[in-house]
């Protein structure tokens, strides 16, 4: 059994800092091992967290992050190794024990009751009151006071289901903080947030850590590591690659240590690395929206040329997703024209949009993309069922061959075409959603947050898939909160605000991510 940190390819391992010796770490793991059957999920992991520190935890899907988090949360028990809380050895036997020790975990899947108010959620199962009756006024007052103390910009009487995603996330964090919390674990909190919303979350995290709480921050977005964290620990294949002070390490070094020597290491590839013919200016647009109006759009004008990739940048709720939905027949167009190849079309249902050559990768792969309980084969076949039909019968062999081709073509890590989608990691699930559109390739790809919650390696592969499809003649319309991703993938960027396209510019006119961020911010005002 390996223990402690494995060889460090970068050579910048910080090791435990000297000043921290005096006060014991908030939480310290040593040689923690966890097996699932024959699989070593953790092979002797070391980790420590200091008071007031934001400690990023990085690694590809399958590196052991989730297992580690579950051990922190008391959901899983380690097989061997030690856990010390403030120097005292502790065994987390249950989630309640972890909670008592002051460890709070905010999971990706939100644990809120959507139909209840923020205050109700904060005090769920411990409402103030007497004789089983809830003192509703005190509940709201207590919640308000607490939120103010924590500096969280939340309205205690807002219903959670009406909140934008970022604020639901904040509610989740507020709920986690509402006990005696010394260690806060955040599992990919920004995976569905837009840039503006991220800042709200970062502010909250900074405030919390300033109060002495240690924050363990799991993410796939490396920029966040540099913005927010003091130290970084990288896991690979269930072992430590190393722990670094964030200030001592570069983006390239981090990517290298996450992916490993055999990895693709392609995260640095930018749009200039890949060549294709620029879309011809004279060609007819593949799709054109002329003054499109509906319940969420206020006169959208937008055109995508053949072979062109257009990015839609904007805040959540700006109408960017709704533009894709309106094109794909998921949202009725009240007035205006949707022209495909110059012809005005009424697209009333997705099946028509698919028939006209559109393909959608929706924002939420669990809710809108996949049937989680069904096999990869079934999921890949979904939008192509009618092509796989033979006089009413389903061509199973054909479908299986397609699924196999998708698994090979997109490097989906799965034992077989019969593997359930639920058993795949986030990145592989997203590749399954892409796999549906690989044969035949749609003429217009509509991608909504194509790499949300996807690790670095899989993200690169997804970019590659998009580029290949575009190289083969597809056009694409991409919505992303990751502005760097937009700059890398697209030719032009349309800025969306208030249900309209307020500006369109070629990517060459945008200096960098910060610049685009600023443009998006200004567009809101």
């Amino acid at each position, binding site marked *: 059994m390996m223990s402690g940190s494995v060889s460090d390819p970068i050579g910048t391992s910080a090791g435990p800092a000297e000043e921290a010796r005096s006060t014991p770490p908030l939480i310290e793991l040593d040689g923690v091992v966890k097996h*699932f*059957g*024959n*699989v070593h*999920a953790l092979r002797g992991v070391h980790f420590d967290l200091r008071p007031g520190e934001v400690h990023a935890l990085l690694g590809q*899907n*399958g*590196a*052991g*992050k*989730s*297992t580690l988090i579950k051990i922190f949360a008391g959901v899983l028990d380690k097989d061997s190794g030690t856990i010390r809380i403030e120097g005292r050895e502790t065994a987390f036997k249950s989630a309640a024990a972890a909670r008592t020790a002051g460890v709070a975990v905010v*999971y*990706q*899947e939100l644990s809120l009751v959507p139909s209840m108010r923020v205050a109700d959620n904060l005090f769920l199962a411990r409402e103030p009151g007497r004789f089983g009756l809830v003192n509703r006024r005190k509940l709201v007052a207590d919640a308000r006071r607490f939120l103010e103390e924590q500096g969280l910009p939340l309205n205690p009487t807002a219903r959670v289901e009406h909140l934008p995603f970022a604020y639901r996330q904040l509610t989740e964090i507020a709920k986690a903080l509402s006990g005696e919390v010394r260690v806060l674990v955040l*599992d990919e909190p920004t995976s569905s947030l837009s840039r503006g919303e991220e800042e709200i979350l970062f502010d909250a995290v900074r405030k919390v850590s300033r109060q002495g709480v240690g924050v363990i921050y799991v993410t796939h977005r490396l920029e966040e590591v540099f913005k927010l964290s003091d130290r970084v620990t990288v896991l690979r294949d269930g072992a430590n690659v190393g722990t670094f002070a964030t200030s001592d390490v570069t983006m390239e070094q981090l990517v290298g240590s996450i992916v490993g020597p055999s990895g693709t290491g392609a995260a640095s590839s930018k749009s200039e690395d890949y060549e294709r013919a620029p879309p011809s200016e004279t060609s007819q647009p593949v799709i054109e929206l002329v003054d499109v109006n509906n319940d969420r759009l206020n006169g959208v004008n937008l055109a995508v040329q053949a072979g062109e990739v257009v990015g839609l940048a904007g805040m959540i709720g700006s109408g960017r997703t709704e533009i894709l939905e309106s094109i*794909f027949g*998921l949202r009725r167009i009240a007035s205006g024209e949707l022209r495909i190849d110059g012809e005005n079309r009424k697209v009333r*249902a*997705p*099946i028509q*949009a*698919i028939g006209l050559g559109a393909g*959608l990768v*929706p924002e939420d792969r669990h*809710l*809108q*993309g*996949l*049937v*989680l*309980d*069904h096999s990869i084969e*079934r999921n890949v*076949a*979904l*939008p192509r*069922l*009618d092509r*796989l*039909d033979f006089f*009413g*019968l*389903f061509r*199973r062999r054909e479908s299986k061959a397609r699924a196999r081709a998708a698994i090979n073509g997109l490097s989906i890590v799965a034992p077989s075409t019969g593997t359930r989608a639920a*058993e*795949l*990691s*986030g990145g592989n699930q997203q590749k399954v959603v892409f796999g*549906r559109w690989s044969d035949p390739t749609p003429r217009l790809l509509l991608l909504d947050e194509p790499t949300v*919650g996807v*690790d670095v390696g899989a993200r690169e592969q997804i970019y590659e898939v998009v580029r290949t499809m575009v190289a083969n003649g597809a056009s694409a319309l991409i919505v992303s909160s990751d502005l760097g991703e937009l700059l890398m993938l697209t030719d032009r960027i349309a800025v969306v605000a208030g249900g309209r396209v307020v500006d369109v510019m070629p990517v060459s006119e945008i200096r960098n991510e910060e610049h685009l961020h600023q443009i998006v911010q200004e567009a809101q005002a």
Partner: protein
Amino acid sequence: MSDTEPEPAVALTLKNAWHTLIATGGLIYVGLLALMIAFAFASPVFLTAENFANIGRQTTLVSIMAVGMALVIINGEFDLSVGSTMALSGVFAAITMKMVGHEWIVGAVVALATGAMVGMVNGLLTVKLMMPSFLITLGSLSIARGLALLVTGTRPVNILSEDYVMIFGEGHVVGIPVPIVWTIVCTIGGIILLHFSTFGRKIYATGGNTTAARYSGINTDFVKVTTLTITGMLAGLAALVLTARSHAARPDAGAGIELDVIAAVILGGAALGGGTGTIVGALVGSLIIGVLNNGLNLVGVDPSLQLAVKGLIIWFAIALSRRRVR
């Protein structure tokens, strides 16, 4: 969520076999077998060919409707109205036959059309009002029964067509009683539709995740209306079998049978939320219900107690079969 956690390897082969059994839904076959062995010991009559023919005949109504109910439940919907629909279809068939000179074909068409019509109304209301089919069919359960009682003045309607009785109730095809033949036809049809047709894929996808199915270009409303219509039509077929066997259509027939049908489908491994289940499972589920009804009778359990015992056994079976979920 990002790490895949494999199942712990199981060393004991016996335990292994148990897990496989649970994972594949094979437990239900063992359950059926165990029940039969138990009844075989308890009653000397149970293991006779005559009794098995009895079970087959008694089970046909539940089996035929369980095929439809399996489609509906896998589709993520629910149909509480099958019992009433069956009664209404039978009553309409008997009345129209009386009016047009006892032609069997008229009865057959009317029964199937009535069933299909009720099913289609269930489906259209479900998708247009965007209400759970559970509630919509709760209404039609009452309406169809009420109509059947109203048009007959609560009295049974006699059936005089010999052909009708032979084709749906008392005839034999190569020595097999026709009710069982109809069950086999429905089962094979259901298997082809659900497991081999493209439409079957749409049923599973819609039940597994309606939103994802919609986003993939599946007309989920059409799928739902169609499955509910098919189920209604199968209730109409069950009505033909029932009325042919009793030479009369009773407006109060099949009250409460929907519960047996639903229990059969759930016992057969279909998830209440939709997306999983099989036709064969539903059929075996209905056989379990049939064997239970028959066996408890033979063993001489007090009829009042029978219902409670049946419920207990269904609880037990469901607890076992649900183990594989999560």
